[in-house]
Structures are given as structure tokens and as C-alpha cells.
């Protein structure tokens, strides 16, 4: 029996900013937000002024002010990359409760371009570490900083506990790259200078149709031979650092009928947290996705066996591998097999990360919006028609998708079960 809120709202459109990946000219995070919002409203035919609920990872007051909106529901949940899946959960609840009619979930992040602006334009919605904060106080002495320095501990634990290998996880990067070679929007779509492509100019980063120095297909050896970052994590186990903007609109059934683009129904939603600082993580091979997924499946009245595709946060290969286990898509210790045995690959029984993932498509720091946009594109058929961006990208015939965001240091998770319109 599905829960009461199941199917009471739908994502009626999803769009990205005009420039994603490695733009030639930096745009501020705010601009990336606004471009995506404008695009999703144009795509659906729902005017910006109809938005009465704003959901973003820390940006909602700025977005409301910038657009001259006076929303009735303001949500700034910012708990890392899964924030956007949680926003969809919260928007579903708010619409189901009759509090709002049109929810905007929005994202803008200049993960790539900030290196050229010295941090200007990022908005810095997050505070720094307070030296008295216990997580900071009892970990800062040991120098761990960037996300790879902590996620590597989970990969090593998985290898020790289940006898898995670095090569097993490399398979995830290889298959995900294969998907990217089918997506012209993906940074790693193809290799620069190949065929009749002109070589990249000095200082040009490329990506997408322009090609990337390290783009195109890779093998397990390519991953294994990439430089060590935080053993056992190597460079190609790690996601990209890009720019991205994205926005989705969510409404109830009546307004969904007025959209120019088809609804993708929110059958189930759930969220959870196991810790914030990795110091407080329990068993390092398990995440709260088991709890957030249980809630989402319960609301949907569906289970992992009903899922025809999956969008799984892949900040690192280990994130995807472990999460597949937590979502019930594979037995514990065997998540990587979905990729190694090619079930997750193009033509497989359970396509995973059809956009090329955070590993090879785009990862701006928080990747949850990219998951939503791709799930919408696949389930709505908008990608089939060339997509709103004008690029093809309908890769699957899937009509149901489990979407799982992971935030922090394997800390927070948001899970959605999305289904196509009948």
C-alpha cells in the first residue's frame, strides 16, 4: 500500500543553466541558478511569478529577492550533495499539505570557475569550521581536508571486510565513462583533438563536444594507473569539479496538466543521516541510504526489484558501490558487480548514471541536482526529443528510477522513487 503522499506531486520540468562543465567565462553561482530557473519556466510554460515555494541549499532568500518573489515556503536545507533530493521530499510534503502550489528546487555552483575568480561569485552559503565545534576540534589535528581524504577510509574498509579490490571499484568508473561517451553535455564525452576535432588551445579546458584531454573511453588499467590521491582512492575514482546550474519545478496533479512538458511522478521520498563528521560514522561500509530508501520504497509501495534504472550519487566510485548495496539493488559487499557484470552499462538490465555520473558528466561540489535533471530527462522522454538543451540523451526505456543523493562524508542521504506518467 503506497503512502498517502505518494504521487501527490510531480516534477513537471527540469533544466540546466546555459553553460555547464568548464565554461570559457566564469558565471556566478547566482547567475547559474537564474539561468536554470528561467529555462525550466520557459520549458514548462509555468511563469516564474507562479513559484510560491523555494527550496535550495542555502540560497533561497537570495533567489527570492533577486526574482522579486515573496514565497510562502522557504527551505534552505544544506546538508551536502543530497540536499536536492531532500528538497523534493519537502516540496512533496508541502504540496500534499496544501501549503504551496508550485515548488522550485534550484542549484547553482561554480565549482570550476571559482579558481579563476578567487572565490568571488560563489556566494559561500556555508560557514567555516568553528574551532570549538567538536567534529573540528577532534579531527583538525590530522590534516584531513578534501572529500577524497575521508572517503578513502570507507573504500579500504570495504576491501578488508568483503575482500573486494581496487579493480572492482575501477569497473564503476569505466562503465560510467561509457555512459558519458553517449552524452554530448558530459565533460568527458570525448577526447580532445581526436578525429577532425581541432586540438584544445592553450589555457582551454574543453569538455563536452569540444573534447577533453582525458575524455573518451577508459579501461580498468587507466583507473589503476591514475595517480594516487588518498590510497586506495586514485584520481579516476574521484568525481569532476565543474560548474553547474539546475532547476526543477514540482506541482500537484492539476497544475501538472498545464505544463508543456510531461510530469514525472514522485512515488516515494525519504531522507536520513547517520552522522555529520566522519568521526561519528558507525560501520564504514554502510550509509543512511538503507533508511532513506526504506522510507521511499514504503511510500511508493514499490521495492528495489521494481526499479528500471537508478541515479546514484557517485562522488567517488566507492560512494556508488556502497550506495547500490544500501538501496537493495545488490547484496552487501557486491554493489560493484552491477557495473562489473554490465547490468549498469548501456543495454544492461538496470542502467545506472546514464548521464555519465559525477565521475564523467559533471560534479560541481553538490551533485544532487544533476541526478534529478537526468532522472527527469530519462523518465519524461524529453531527452528523446533532443532534450531542452537540444542534445540527444534518451538512453533507456526505463519508466521507474530510484534516485539517491549522498552528502557530507557519507553522512546524509535523500532517496526518491520516480515514475513516468501513464
Amino acid at each position, binding site marked *: 500500500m503506497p503512502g498517502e503522499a505518494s504521487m501527490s506531486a510531480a516534477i513537471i520540468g527540469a533544466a540546466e543553466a546555459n553553460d555547464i562543465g568548464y565554461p570559457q567565462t566564469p558565471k556566478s553561482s547566482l547567475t547559474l541558478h537564474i539561468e536554470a530557473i528561467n529555462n525550466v519556466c520557459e520549458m514548462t510554460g509555468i511563469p516564474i511569478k507562479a513559484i510560491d515555494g523555494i527550496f535550495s541549499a542555502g540560497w533561497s532568500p537570495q533567489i527570492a529577492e533577486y526574482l522579486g518573489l515573496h514565497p510562502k515556503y522557504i527551505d534552505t536545507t544544506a546538508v551536502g550533495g543530497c540536499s536536492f533530493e531532500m528538497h523534493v521530499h519537502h516540496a512533496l510534503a508541502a504540496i500534499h499539505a496544501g501549503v504551496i502550489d508550485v515548488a522550485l528546487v534550484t542549484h547553482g555552483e561554480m565549482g570550476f570557475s571559482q579558481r579563476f575568480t578567487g572565490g568571488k561569485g560563489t556566494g559561500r552559503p556555508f560557514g567555516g569550521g568553528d574551532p570549538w565545534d567538536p567534529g573540528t*576540534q577532534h579531527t583538525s589535528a*590530522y*590534516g584531513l581536508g578534501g572529500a*577524497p581524504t575521508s572517503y578513502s577510509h*570507507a*573504500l579500504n574498509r570495504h576491501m578488508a571486510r568483503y575482500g573486494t579490490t581496487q579493480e572492482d571499484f575501477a569497473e564503476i568508473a569505466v562503465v560510467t565513462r561509457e555512459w558519458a561517451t553517449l552524452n554530448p553535455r558530459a565533460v568527458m564525452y570525448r577526447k580532445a583533438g581526436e578525429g577532425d576535432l581541432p586540438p584544445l588551445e592553450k589555457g582551454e579546458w574543453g569538455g563536452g563536444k569540444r573534447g577533453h584531454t582525458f575524455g573518451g573511453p577508459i579501461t580498468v588499467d587507466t583507473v589503476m594507473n591514475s595517480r*594516487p590521491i588518498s*590510497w586506495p582512492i586514485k584520481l579516476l575514482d574521484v568525481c569532476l569539479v565543474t560548474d553547474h546550474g539546475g532547476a526543477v519545478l514540482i506541482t500537484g496533479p492539476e497544475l501538472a496538466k498545464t505544463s508543456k512538458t510531461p510530469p514525472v511522478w514522485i512515488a516515494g521520498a525519504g531522507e536520513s543521516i547517520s552522522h555529520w563528521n566522519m*568521526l561519528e560514522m558507525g560501520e564504514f561500509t554502510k550509509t543512511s541510504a538503507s533508511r532513506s530508501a526504506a522510507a521511499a520504497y514504503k511510500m511508493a509501495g514499490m521495492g528495489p526489484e521494481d526499479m528500471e534504472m537508478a541515479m546514484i550519487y557517485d562522488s567517488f566510485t566507492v560512494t556508488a558501490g556502497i550506495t547500490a548495496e544500501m538501496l537493495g539493488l545488490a547484496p552487501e559487499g557486491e554493489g560493484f558487480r552491477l557495473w562489473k557484470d554490465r547490468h549498469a552499462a548501456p543495454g544492461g538490465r538496470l542502467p545506472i548514471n546514464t548521464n555519465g555520473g559525477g565521475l564523467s558528466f559533471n560534479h560541481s561540489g553538490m551533485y544532487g541536482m544533476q541526478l534529478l535533471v537526468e532522472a527527469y530527462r530519462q523518465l519524461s522522454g524529453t531527452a528523446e526529443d533532443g532534450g531542452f538543451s537540444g542534445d540527444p540523451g534518451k538512453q533507456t526505456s526505463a519508466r521507474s528510477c530510484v534516485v539517491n543523493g549522498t552528502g557530507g562524508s557519507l553522512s546524509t542521504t535523500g532517496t526518491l522513487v520516480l515514475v513516468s506518467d501513464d
Partner: protein
Amino acid sequence: MAEYTKPIPSPDPVSQPFWDGAKEGKLMLPRCDDCNRVHWYPRVICPFCHSMNIEWVEATGKGTIHTFAVQHNKGLVARGWGDEVPYVSAYIDLAEGDRMLTVLKGVDPNDPESIEIGGAVQIEFEEASEDVHIPFWRPV
């Protein structure tokens, strides 16, 4: 004493007994007076039973490695640690319960297979400043 160039934690009123113990080479841990469980990091409330009766006890300083990683990338680690890559960070399961983050001493970062998850370790303290002695762990 040579100048300590890596980050030095800032003790706060809640954690002060831990740092006081560290100066004497003792591992002091907060323990709940009601459920008797030890927790880490220090809190004013027990995370297991939510009692606010917390006392400090001297621990054995023994533990085992829950997991570890080898930090290779200067750009991803804090200032001061960049000069020490590769180095081995680890999460330690304390003999008394719960877990600490640390850097392992006396291990070979270039041979991670020689380091054992589940292996026994012992705490030691390094004087970073007059007030702050930082705990590190070493395989026994």
C-alpha cells in the same frame, strides 16, 4: 622544542579534561554515569541514553584499527601536513568503546598492505604547544 607547524586543536570547556589528561600522557574519556558507556567526541549529554551525568575516566590507551587511508595529495590536506605526505590517517576503535580519528606512527605509507585493519594500536601524545598535546597511535 621545534615549532609545531601543523594545526593545533582549540580545547573548549566541554573537552578540557581530555586535554588536561593528554598533557600528563593519559587518555581521559567521557563516560556516562547511568549507562556506563564511553563516548567520543566529548559531549555534555550521553549520545546513547541521553543522561547528562557524564564523568571522566582514565582509559587504557589501547585500540584497534577500524580503517585507514594513505594521504598522497598535498593540496587536499591541511597546511603543515602537506610536507608529510604520504602519511597514514586512521580511525581507531577504542578498547573502551567508540572511535577516534588519528594519524598512525611507525607505519610505512608506501606499503599499505603491511598495515592491518583490526590490528592493535597504542596511544601516544605529541606536545604541539604548552597546553595542547595531540594524541597519535602506533601499532604494537
